[in-house]
């Protein structure tokens, strides 16, 4: 039984979540889910900060997380507002629908 979790394991876990989120942005057509995946990425970042904060015995990381959470909230608010506006004109939330602007 391992008594300790190595920091790199935690960090790798964060990276995994981060890239799962990123992959979600890449492969999901539903904009709402894309927004969720971005939240996922931000969460991974938060955890990274906290992990480092713990490891370094430095509270800067935790402080950062506080702000990031707030910013994420603001961001989702704006993002969802945009989704609503878009839905009003397009009647849909499919990313493939928004390909008017190209080339």
């Amino acid at each position, binding site marked *: *039984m391992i*008594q*300790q*979790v*190595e*920091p*790199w394991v*935690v*960090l*790798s876990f964060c*990276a*995994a*979540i981060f*890239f*799962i*989120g990123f*992959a*979600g942005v*890449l*492969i*999901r*057509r*539903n904009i*709402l*889910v894309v*927004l*969720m*995946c971005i*939240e*996922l990425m931000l*969460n991974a970042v*938060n*955890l990274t900060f*906290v992990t480092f904060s*713990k*490891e*370094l*015995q*430095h*509270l800067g990381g*935790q*402080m950062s*997380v*506080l*702000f990031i*959470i*707030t*910013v994420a*909230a*603001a961001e*989702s*608010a*704006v993002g*969802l*507002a945009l989704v*609503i506006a878009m*839905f009003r004109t397009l*009647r849909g*939330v499919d990313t*493939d629908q928004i390909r008017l602007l190209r080339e």
Partner: protein
Amino acid sequence: MDISPVFFYLFAGLALGCSLLVVLKKNPVASAFNLVMVFFAFAGIYAMLDAHLIAALQVLVYAGAIMVLFLFVIMLLNADVPSFDLQRSHPGARVVAGLLCAVLLLAFVWAFKNSPSPVEPGQFSASRIEAAGGNTRVVSELLFSEYILPFELTSVLLLGAIVGAVAIAKRKQKVGAGGGVK
């Protein structure tokens, strides 16, 4: 790191699985619920890492506020469209995206494993934080002293976001002429 491997792996496994489901589930509501699970799992890990305030905020803000907002919007829009469950994008793109992410992940894992932190541990050891009145207290004190600027800025940001969200999402209204100034 002095955290319990069992609980860590439990939460981590939960988070990983749920986040995969977020990406893979067709139904956005299902994705949203899985996301909530991820948030909870994260909250647990935060708590294990002695970030108690953050663990609480994670539940409050993320799981409580943001996800509710999401669900609210899903419900708001879902009413109109019958087939809200969208296909995922092109299969080729999916494979490429997955592959590239996996490669990157491997690179990062390799990097994490091979770079020990070169920094001496700082003054905020768990015991000293305890002595100073606990995580929440210390964090709050920092928030209003060293971190006063970002704190104030987030409030500005929130104000801006509110104005923006209102401007973009409000119902169409009659536009008054600029008038007066030519």
